[in-house]
Structures are given as structure tokens and as C-alpha cells.
């Protein structure tokens, strides 16, 4: 029994200093409810993904505050670092699936949001570092750019990949972001812009930005969606897998094993394989991670993901092409991060999981204007931390 996504909403991502987090949650949720053609009163439950409102904004106990804002009397908050809202989506889809078995017509709202820019960079970096292991990583000065830099350094050491291959991911995603009016950055970047180490070998433009934003989805059963007569996309499934929070305890540093398990499980349940996927939004929090995600999602073997990036060669020509720019995988076009990805669209960590699904749903429904690529099957791969949590979803028109 498939779950139907009948509404999507997303705010502009960026440094939204004139808005507070409540404004953002209300804005994306109102948009989602509106295009689902329902009212807030019709919603049975609301799942909210957020990483760290308490340290960013001082607010704990988020759920009843959401009740105040949206008037929904059953709100549940989830946290899994940058995968927080994917967990919310999973719980919501489970509830809808259960209701379909019971013959109930339930509607759930899923919201993901983060307000990150009200803190100075060093503090935000510290809060985000909370998604790594406190006793071994944080006390030793770990930052997220630092942890992903360790992955990048090892990747570059073990494979033939170069720093330019990493940069090409950023250039492509910035190019795609130009067509997304909700994206934080809508400008081209070039190889020569990659300077200034954040954590060697990662340059500033290899890193996704600190951003504010909110994204919302409305879910119901496929049967009820048809009754409501609204356009919808089927959420075939969404799979969660966890691994060790510490990089040092991974079975293989260069394999996002949580993501690999989630993807394999999702493919199996949807009875598809990577060759069936036309479009995927992956977790390019750092450029190296788009490569690792492509490998985990089965588009390339371990240590070979950079060869997919090289389908964009010569990199000087990426910006001369028409956006969105696809990769060539085994002679087939695959669109990755048409939204601009975390890199260009922005990365309000709690919002990202839902925002990825919003992009894929809108692509499947043909609502993405100039950047629409008319996919049949889309997917999302959302990572929490350095791969401690991963979710993989499969969506179909």
C-alpha cells in the first residue's frame, strides 16, 4: 500500500534574519496544506524534524509550540542531526500505512526546519559538531568540515580522484541552483573560486552553507488521495539505517555503510535498482559526500564514484551547459541534485531531508518549471552526521 504525498511547501533558504523559526514553519506548512487542497483542521498528526533548536534559539519542547502555531493537537518531534526530518517522514508514513490497513483516512503533516544564522559561525560550528561523538571527536576539536575533510583526504589518497573532481560537484550544483528560486545561492562558480581552506583539502566552496529554512509535506493514503482528487506522488518507501556515530568505528571509512544498507533495503522493497532512477537528491553537505552518496546508492563501486563526476569533464565547460546538468552513468543520464543540492540550495539541517523529498515530488509532478527533468522514479538519500544515520526514499509518479 503506497503512501501519497499530496502537498509540498518550502521556504526560501538562506540568511533569513528578518524571520524567526515560527514564521518559517508556518510559511512552508501553509504552502503544503494549500496545494494539498486541505485545511489545517483536516490534519491528524504532525511530525517535526529539527536538529537543535534548543542551542540555536534556546527553545526546547518544540512540539507544543508547533501546536500553538499550526493548531494541530498531535505533534511529535524527531532528531537525527541532518537527517532529522527524514525520520519524521518515516514515522508519518508508518502512521499513514497503518491507517490504510485500518481503513482510516488519515492525513499527516511532516515539517523539517532549522534556524541557524542567529549564531556566529564558531558557535554554529560547535552546535553542529554535536552530531559527532563528544568524548572522542568533539573534545579533540572536531568540526564537520574537519570530519568530512578526513573522508576526503583518505578518498583522495586511496583513489585516483583529485580535488578538482570534488570542486566539479560544487560547480554543477551551483549551476543547477540558478534555476531554483528557493535556493540560497543562485550564481555560477568556477574552479578558480575554490580557494581558502576550511579544513584541508576542503575549500570554502566545497562546503554547504549555514542556512535557515523550512520544508513541509502532506501525506495521506493513496486511496484517500484519489478520493480528494488531488495530484500526488507515491512514496514507495523510506528506509532508515544507522551506523557508528564515530568515524573511527566504521567498518570501512570510505563506505557510508548506513546509506548503503538503507538504499539496498529501499531498492529491494520497491523492486527497483539504481538503473531505474532518473533523479536523486543526495546529501552533498560537502562535495566529497555527493561522491560517497553515489557509491552508497549503488551508482558506482567503492572508490569509483569520482568517475561519475568525470562525466562532466571538461569542468571548465559545466557552466556553459544548460541547467540542470546531468551525470552520465553507464551511458545513461542521471540527474543529481537538480535543486542545487545542499551546496547551492542551502542546508538548514533539520529541513534538508524533507526539502530533498519536496524537490523530487515537484519534479515528478512537473512543477519545477525550467529545471524540470520529467523523471519517472526519483529518490532521496539523506545523511545524519558523518553517516551515523542515513535514510533512503523511493518516489514514483
Amino acid at each position, binding site marked *: 500500500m503506497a503512501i501519497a504525498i499530496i502537498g509540498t511547501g518550502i521556504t526560501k533558504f538562506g540568511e533569513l534574519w528578518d524571520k524567526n523559526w515560527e514564521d518559517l514553519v508556518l510559511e512552508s506548512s501553509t504552502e503544503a496544506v494549500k496545494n494539498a487542497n486541505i485545511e489545517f483542521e483536516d490534519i491528524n498528526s504532525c511530525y517535526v524534524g529539527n536538529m537543535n533548536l534548543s542551542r540555536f534559539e534556546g527553545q526546547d519542547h518544540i512540539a507544543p509550540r508547533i501546536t500553538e502555531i499550526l493548531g494541530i493537537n498531535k505533534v511529535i518531534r524527531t532528531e537525527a542531526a541532518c537527517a532529522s526530518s527524514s525520520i519524521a517522514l518515516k514515522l508519518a508514513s508508518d502512521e499513514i500505512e497503518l491507517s490504510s490497513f485500518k481503513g482510516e483516512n488519515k492525513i499527516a503533516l511532516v515539517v523539517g526546519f532549522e534556524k541557524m544564522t542567529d549564531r556566529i559561525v564558531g558557535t554554529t*560550528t*560547535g552546535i553542529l559538531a554535536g552530531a559527532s561523538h563528544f568524548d572522542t571527536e568533539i573534545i579533540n576539536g572536531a568540526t564537520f568540515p574537519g570530519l568530512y*575533510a*578526513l*573522508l576526503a583526504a583518505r578518498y583522495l589518497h586511496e583513489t585516483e580522484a583529485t580535488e578538482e573532481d570534488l570542486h566539479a560537484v560544487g560547480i554543477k550544483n551551483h549551476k543547477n541552483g540558478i534555476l531554483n528560486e528557493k535556493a540560497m545561492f543562485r550564481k555560477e562558480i568556477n574552479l578558480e573560486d575554490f580557494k581558502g*581552506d*576550511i579544513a584541508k583539502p576542503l575549500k570554502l566552496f566545497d562546503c554547504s552553507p549555514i542556512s535557515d529554512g523550512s520544508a513541509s509535506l502532506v501525506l495521506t493514503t493513496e486511496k484517500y488521495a484519489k478520493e480528494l482528487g488531488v495530484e500526488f506522488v507515491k512514496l514507495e518507501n523510506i528506509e532508515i539505517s544507522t551506523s557508528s556515530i564515530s568515524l573511527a568505528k566504521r567498518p570501512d571509512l570510505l563506505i557510508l555503510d548506513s546509506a548503503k544498507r538503507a538504499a539496498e533495503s529501499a531498492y529491494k522493497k520497491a523492486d527497483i535498482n539504481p538503473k531505474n532512477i532518473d533523479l536523486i537528491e543526495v546529501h552533498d553537505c560537502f562535495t566529497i559526500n555527493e561522491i560517497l552518496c553515489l557509491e552508497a546508492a549503488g551508482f558506482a563501486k567503492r572508490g569509483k564514484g569520482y568517475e561519475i563526476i568525470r562525466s562532466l569533464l571538461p569542468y571548465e565547460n559545466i557552466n556553459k551547459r544548460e541547467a540542470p546538468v546531468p551525470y552520465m552513468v553507464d551511458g545513461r543520464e542521471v540527474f543529481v541534485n537538480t535543486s542545487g543540492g545542499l551546496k547551492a540550495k542551502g542546508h538548514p539541517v533539520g529541513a534538508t531531508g524533507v526539502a530533498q523529498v519536496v524537490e523530487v515530488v515537484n519534479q515528478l509532478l512537473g512543477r519545477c518549471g525550467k529545471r524540470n527533468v520529467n523523471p519517472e522514479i526519483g529518490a532521496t538519500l539523506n545523511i545524519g552526521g558523518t553517516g551515523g544515520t542515513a535514510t533512503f526514499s523511493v518516489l514514483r509518479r
Partner: protein
Amino acid sequence: MTIAPKIFRLNNFENVGKKGEIYSRTKISVASNLFQYNRKVPYITALIKTEDKLVFGLVDEDNAEIGDKVTARIGKLGITKLGLHVYGVVWEFDKTFAKPEVEESKIKRNLPEEKVGISGYGVYIPRYRLNLSTLNKVWGKEVKGVKSFPGKYDDQATYACNSSLNALKHAGIEGKEIRFIQVGSESKIYAVKPTASIVAGLLKTEDCFAADIEFACKAGTQAIINAYNFVKTNGGYGLGIGADSAQGAPGDELELTAGDGGAAFIIGSKESIAVIEGTASYTTDTSDFWRNEGEKFPKHAGRYSGDPAFYKHIMNAAKNLMEKLNLKPIDFDYVVFHQPNSKFPRVVGKKLGFTPEQIEPGIVFDSIGNTYSANSLLGLAKILDIAAPYQRILLVSYGSGAGSDAISFITTPEIENKRKRIERSVKSWLGEEDKENLILSDYSIYLKNKGII
């Protein structure tokens, strides 16, 4: 802001002493300021492949690359916003250093009946040396020479901890066998909370007396004498440490001499490498150097530190001990005096009737400056490195305020057996050997690492 309660138990000494290979590394240029850790950017974090697992850690080498071999030691990782110091391991390049080389013994001294003495010793001196001539531009002083100062991950507690671990290795005992720890220092990292308990935590010894002790530059010998008396009464092992990140105000004369380092001595009644033959002390109310409560840097009385202070106390303590033991200067093979500068120890030795042959082997000042409580202890360690069995050593400390402790040691055949365990000579730590290991820096890096700027 919320801070987890576990912040109160953050010292993480797992992996100390382990060897490994850098598996991946990055140089972090933008740091988190949440806990003020490692605020001295950039710094190197790495995944290190040890024998049994991959570990995450800091590397104290700016040019670390994948594949480099490293060894873990104790380092200060930073200070939390609560003001708590966080200790853990930092990894340094694996190196082989010069080992101690024994000098020919001329005369064999008779061993006393006393069995209590030094079971093992260890030192720790940071690699950084301030090139004193770089102060000329700032302060207009024509000075030359070098002195030690802290690396990025060093402070008084890391000197105490690392020297203690080296002493344990030399003594060949377990940390939990230590029943007494005293750290002599005038640069304690906390005004309230002992460094001795950090050492106890590192050694995993809980049935243990631990305290810090202060008496200007002589607190190190006090710690040894107290450990000696404890062992005589209670048996077991005691640990006496002298460790200082010596303070000198910018522009002050002390800034030209105040150095960094630590030395630790394990006192026991078994397998002593040098037994303690006797001790004597001398104390008067003399105000030649002092630091008021809450002040960062000490003040001093200039030339008054000479005759009425340093010379008077050292000579009286030395004479008291020699009288007590019925010994003359000729009965000693080596002698170590406190070394606040290059001249004083040499002059006081001559005044007491010692020869340069007895004095020179114990001089450490010229390589690292005056490391306050660690000063004369480092001199003693330097001599123990080269001493043959059945030799007599006189150690006389001096602490402003003022007092001196004199201790007479006689080495035993055990000194040769245990010397094999020493991986690095005191001369190497001082930089008299393995000079290429030193990092010669200018005044600006010194000011940063000392926490002055």
C-alpha cells in the same frame, strides 16, 4: 547554553603511549568555539591507525601526512567555557632519540644501610625554544641564548603527567602502586584543584595521598623529601614531581630566563637506583621574589636575590647536610644547585669548594632557562643519566621566600639495569642532543603559546 555534566570528567587518557600510523588527516582552519577547545587554529586532526583500531585524535605536527608514524602523549586539548582544562592524547611523530651514556666511574662510594631512594625518574620538556635575541627588537635588550616554552598542547599539568609516565616506565612499576603524589609548582593550572589529582587520575591510582606544594623554585625537592618520608613510614612507592610553566612578565628580566618543563621521581624502598643518604633544609623569612594573590607574574628584588637570598640559603643547607653526614666536597662525584641563571650555580659551587668537574654535568639552565620547581630536579635527572654505580650526588635547591633543601644520593648497581629502559636521554630532552627535534621560535609564538596574547 547547555553544557553536558560529563564536562566535569573529560580527561581521556586512553591510547597514551600507543603507536600508530596516520590514516587520514586534515588541517582545521575554522574551529568551533563552543567549548573554546583548540582555539589556536589551525590545528591538525587525524584518524590514526593503531595496532588494534582506528582512533580520532589531534596531531602536534603541522606537516603530518597519511602514512606518517606517530606516538601518543598527554596533551592539553583546551579549556571549556566553565574554565576546566581538558586533557587527552596528542600524537607526535615517532622518532628515535639519543639514549643516556654512562661516564667512567673513578671512585666507589660505600652504600649506606638506607634502602629508600629513587626507583625511577622521568622528565618532560617541550620542543619549543624561544630565540631570546628576538626580544631585542621589542625590549631593546642585547640578549642571546634560548629557553623552553610550551607547545600548542602543553601546560604545567602535561609536564607533570608526561614526566610521571616516563618515570613509571623507568621504575618498571604500575601507576596504581603509587601511594603518594606531590606536585611542586608555582604555576599550577588551577588556583584551587590540584594538579596532583590529574596525575593520580592518569596513573589510575585512587588509594593514594595527593597534593600540590609550593615554595617558589624549591617545591620539587620538597615533594621528593615528602615522598621519601612517606615511603619510610608507609612503604610502597611515592611520586615527587617538579613541574612549571615558569612566569616572567613581558619586558621583565625574568622573561629572559623563565622556562618550561617537568621532572618526576619515584621514591621506593625496592630496587633503588640511588638511595637517599640524608637531607637537610634551611629556611629564613627573606623576600627576594614573590607573587601576590591573583597576580599573573612574580616580582623580584633584583640584586637582593644574590648574597642574602640564593647564596646564603644554598650554602647553609649544603653545609648543614655535609656536617650531618660528615662529608666534604671531595666526597661527592656530582653536585647540582638551583640554576636561576647561568652564573649563580657555578659561583655557589666554587664558594662551597666544588670543582667544575662536579658542577658542569648537572647544568641545564643554558639549554632551557629556569624551569622553577623543575629546575634542580632536571639537573639531577641529567646526572642520573650518566652516573655509574656507587657515586655520590649532592642536590641543593633554592626557593625564594626563602629556603633550600639539600639531599645526598648514592647510586646503586640498579642504575645500570634500569638505564636500559630509558628511551630518551635528558640531554636529548634538553636539546643538547637531537637538536633537529627542537622548534626554534620567535617572541610572537612564545607570547601566543604562553597565553600572554
